[in-house]
């Protein structure tokens, strides 16, 4: 008889979920009359087939990891920070703003980049604090507040690109004027990735792991998330802790936005967040909010994103295929978790 509570049993179910998601995606491809094996091969080669590809994956990985990192804290506090997309966008806007103000000044480029990062953090925090204030003092659910602010952030980006910050002549969807090379985050020779942003991403997740694992702050945050009323009666100022979760998540989202501007696009573009906020929500759900798994799973998702870029060119398939795979993976993992719980649950409660 299988031991139904062993970690192996649990792991087996997760493998089953991955297999289920692969089968599901294969079926979709068969329906679309596309060769599934060729598509999967292309995704693998397109993501980890060469050093350049791996570097590209890392470029996508870092903002995704930063977003996931922040979300781990809001999820710990029981908050659905859907507004993270807007927070990333505001981070990018603030970074761009700081760079535009300072690019012609006499400050050293290094200092300007640092100020750019700080401005991004500030922007993300500001936007997150709006959601938080609406939630805690206005009684507006953070999902609605965040969603609304996402739209405002997108509108603000478009307005800036076509209005005050437009390129000389006519504004275009390709964004604002790119910044001078000196204001780019230093990149690895011949590759698009930067050691600096990689460092920021890894340090970020390490800090959040420590906060959740071993600090009073992290434990109280979890208490607020699991039972806010009891946490209050025990003596935790729940509003303050929810607000802190929003602030820190906003800071990480802002960092992600700053990385997008300083290390990836070097300008403000209309969809600067690249959907990493929503993808981060999926990663966080997939790893069941365990910080330890954030880095590898976010890497896997980034690899799927980068790997599927070739699909439209080679197979005339839309690159949204990676989204299908990511989405079905989350659904299957959640579903198999439910099945496992049902199997292991005691018959009558």
């Amino acid at each position: 008889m299988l031991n139904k509570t062993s970690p192996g049993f649990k792991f087996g179910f997760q493998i089953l979920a991955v297999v289920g998601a692969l089968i599901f995606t294969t079926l979709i491809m068969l329906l679309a009359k596309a060769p599934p094996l060729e598509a999967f091969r292309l995704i693998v080669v397109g993501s980890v087939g060469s050093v350049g590809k791996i570097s590209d994956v890392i470029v996508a990985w870092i903002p995704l990891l930063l977003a996931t990192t922040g979300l781990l804290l809001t999820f710990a506090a029981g908050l659905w920070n859907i507004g993270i997309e807007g927070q990333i966008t505001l981070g990018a806007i603030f970074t761009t703003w700081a760079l535009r103000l300072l690019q012609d000044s006499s400050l050293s480029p290094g200092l300007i980049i640092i100020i750019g990062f700080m401005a991004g953090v500030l922007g993300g925090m500001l936007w997150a604090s709006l959601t938080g204030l609406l939630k805690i003092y206005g009684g507006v659910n953070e999902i609605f507040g965040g969603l609304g602010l996402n739209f405002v952030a997108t509108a603000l980006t478009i307005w800036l690109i076509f209005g005050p910050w437009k390129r000389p002549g006519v504004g275009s969807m390709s964004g604002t004027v790119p910044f001078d090379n000196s204001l780019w985050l230093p990149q690895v020779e011949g590759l698009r990735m930067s050691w600096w942003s990689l460092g920021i991403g890894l340090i970020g997740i390490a800090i959040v792991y420590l906060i959740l694992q071993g600090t009073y702050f992290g434990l109280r945050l979890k208490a607020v998330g699991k039972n806010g009323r009891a946490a209050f009666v025990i003596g935790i100022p729940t509003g303050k802790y929810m607000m802190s979760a929003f602030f820190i998540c906003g800071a990480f989202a802002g960092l992600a936005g700053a990385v997008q501007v300083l290390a990836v696009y070097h300008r403000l573009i209309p969809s600067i967040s690249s959907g990493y906020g929503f993808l981060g929500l999926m990663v966080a759900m997939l790893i069941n909010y365990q910080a330890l798994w954030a880095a590898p799973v976010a890497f896997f998702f980034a690899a799927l994103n980068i790997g599927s870029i070739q699909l439209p060119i080679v197979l005339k398939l839309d690159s949204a295929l990676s989204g299908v795979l990511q989405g079905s993976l989350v659904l299957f993992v959640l579903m198999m978790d439910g099945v496992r719980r049902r199997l292991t649950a005691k018959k009558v409660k």
Partner: protein
Amino acid sequence: MLHQDPLDFPPMKIVDNMLIGHDGGLFPNKGEVSKALKELQSQFGFNLDPEAYVDSLTVGERQQLEILRLLWLGARVLILDEPTTGISASQKAKLFETLKKLASQGMVIIFVSHKLEDVEGLCHKIAVFRQGSLVGEVAPPYETDNLVELMFGKVISLDEKTQLEFCEPAVEVAGLSIDDNRIQIRGADLIINCGEVIGLAGMEGSGQRQFLRTLAGLIRPVGGEIVLNGKRMTGKPYHAFQGVGVSYVPASRMEEGLIPGLSITEHFILSEGQSGFFIDREKAVTVSRERITSFNIKGEPVTRVEALSGGNQQRALLAMLRTPLRLLLLEHPTRGLDIESSIWIWSKLKDRCKQKTCIVFISADLEEVLHYSDRILVFYNGKVSQPLDATSTTVDQLGQLIGGKGF
């Protein structure tokens, strides 16, 4: 099945709760339900507003709602799990009357209770369980000592009541007025000496809960003063009350007291207050082990609180209380517990009194109120009686006051 913790939908109205689980087509007839509800209520003397929201009710009132709902749905086998913990004596008599009538009509009633007088007065047959096994079946006439012996394997009697020396007044309440959406309390006065135990009696929903929560700082009074150890606390936030040594132990343990998903150790860490930034896990586990032993909790430091039984959850809640405390406020501290656990919990509480902590508690069990209190306040529909001396008050007198006679 009537559960000990009501299974209902707090954010919905009473009438909607009645309709859930009822086959009524696409468009339920709310008017008819309200009417049926009123008729049933008049049978029992309950007084619930069909348009009220369930989260504004007390645990006892929610039990009333559940009983009404099950009867209305026409259950054939009624299982009641500790149904009498939250309702008054007169309501209980009416409930028993109905249960007897239902039984005589051929309905099967399974009644789970730890209150011997209830089962003795109601049941045609008693089955006694101890630690998961059926240890005996008894037919009337019942002998209480016999039942107690079956339940515990030994005969238990309450401790002798001991009179403690009081010191100076620790809590002064003057002209306290509270406005709740259903209950109004006007001009309540009380001075509590340190080490004193005050029992709050009354039918569920008569204002005693509001009074207790006001003393805790959870409800802001509309008038009057609360002074703790010479410090004026009126209008200060709950966490300021905690800061001066007030602790509140709610009745709904899993909703307001404990945090499902966290371990016993983590609860102790949360209640301890911070020392440094990082948690010293090793030390926390050591402290947790000590408390688990001294509070006789059946669980490990890593056990999650939702896996504990009701009695062990209550012990865990008491183990979380800080020392020293000035004022300890308890809602139904022994509801749903067996006699042995209750006696044990009160021995721990009396230890607190020796350390000069004042205790104010609510209980629906008149014996408990009379036995453990020094003085008693009776609540009736928001009115508060003069403090009664517990030694010179009888159950009958208390019952009269609870029923609203003598105010």
